[in-house]
């Protein structure tokens, strides 16, 4: 790892000031950034640690509105009793990230800001029509995730929370790479008052996306059987050493079917 200057931010305002120094990066759980720095894929001059800022931590559920602080760990998301009642699919998704040690450190804000094309949270946030709240503005998930490791965040902008309305039904199904545990394909389905939405992670050439084919099939009939014979196009899907685009296309339909069955269970 190259040399770096560490700063522990006391508040979001403090962090916003500190992040202006040099080529600084925000540090949350560090489960992606620290390994990237170790391999010198990332070499920030300064790190601004957000993980001890109390105002960024915790899950709030009020009626159907769920708000999760950016520095809330995957462990705390997975185990929050109120969230498990309001949107069990979201808590379950958090319990599938990484391994137990990673879930203790990694945070939702860090994952969302990094926008790894195989990360789990982006699929949930896109399908739920979530809002990403920063220290400057509110951004809809549809506008936030802009490409591979790309987001609408401006330099130095800090995610403070994500919020969404708990759907009537939802589920997440993930086909994992057996070694890395990342999604080869992950599908989040949600049925709310605005209809059915289906978001796919792990598969898109440009990161997370909504599957129009699956959504169309489920709009009339939210049942696993509605997806019988539905073909997902392999266009714009990733091919890598783990899976071809065609295989991923096939997996999207299978995972969507399982997710709908789980949501209806």
């Amino acid at each position, binding site marked *: 790892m190259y040399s770096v200057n560490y700063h522990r931010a006391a508040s979001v305002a403090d962090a916003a000031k500190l992040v202006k120094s040099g080529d600084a990066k925000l540090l949350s759980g560090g489960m992606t950034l620290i390994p990237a720095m170790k391999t010198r894929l990332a070499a920030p001059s300064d790190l601004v640690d957000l993980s001890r800022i109390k105002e960024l931590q915790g899950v709030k559920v009020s009626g159907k509105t769920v708000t999760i602080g950016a520095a809330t760990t995957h462990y705390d998301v997975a185990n929050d009793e109120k969230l498990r009642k309001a949107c069990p699919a979201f808590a379950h998704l958090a319990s599938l990230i990484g391994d*137990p040690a990673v879930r203790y450190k990694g945070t939702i804000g860090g994952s969302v800001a990094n926008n790894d094309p195989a990360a789990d949270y982006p699929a949930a946030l896109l399908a739920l029509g979530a809002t990403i709240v920063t220290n400057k503005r509110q951004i809809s998930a549809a506008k936030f995730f802009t490409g591979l490791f790309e987001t609408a965040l401006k330099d130095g902008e800090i995610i403070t929370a994500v919020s969404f309305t708990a759907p009537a039904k939802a589920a997440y199904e993930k086909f994992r790479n057996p070694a890395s545990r990342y999604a080869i394909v992950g599908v989040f389905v949600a049925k709310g008052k605005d209809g059915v939405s289906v978001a796919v992670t792990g598969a898109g050439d440009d990161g997370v996306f909504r599957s129009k084919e699956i959504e169309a099939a489920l709009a009339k009939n939210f049942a696993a059987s509605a997806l019988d014979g539905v073909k997902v196009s392999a266009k714009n899907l990733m091919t890598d050493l783990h899976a071809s685009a065609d295989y991923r296309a096939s997996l999207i339909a299978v995972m969507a079917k399982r997710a709908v069955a789980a949501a209806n269970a």
Partner: protein
Amino acid sequence: MSDVSFVVNGKRVSGAAEDRTLLVHFLRENLGLTGTHVGCDTSQCGACVVHVDGKAVKSCSMLAVQASGSTVVTIEGLANGADLHPVQAAFKEHHGLQCGFCTPGMIMTATDMIARHPEGLDEATVRTELEGNICRCTGYHNIVKAILAASKTMAKASKGRAKQAA
């Protein structure tokens, strides 16, 4: 450089470290606590697992300065003098190790796992929860047996204590 100060295995320690120093290197090189191992260096293998503020985390994926102000427990801090911790005793009894390299991380993960499952553990849960710890000798079978046995022993011991308290 930053001043790093935390409580390790019950003792307050402090020292100066470069900000880029990983917690595992601080423990091993500054404090001489070489029980915590560096296995893969890519945060996959879990040989470096220690407890920071009561949570089992990978000390190779955390800066020492991030842990400043925290309470850290390493494998050296588990036993009570010459009496092994129940998880250590179970690993010995069930031969839960072959070469022993992954063992400190396995044991630190196991103690955390047992604490999170006071209702008891089954084999499937133990195997799932061990996904962040790799044993290169592939000695998982006895590791799982040892963790299940330790979980039972510790449940009995805590019931015993509860009775005494009542």
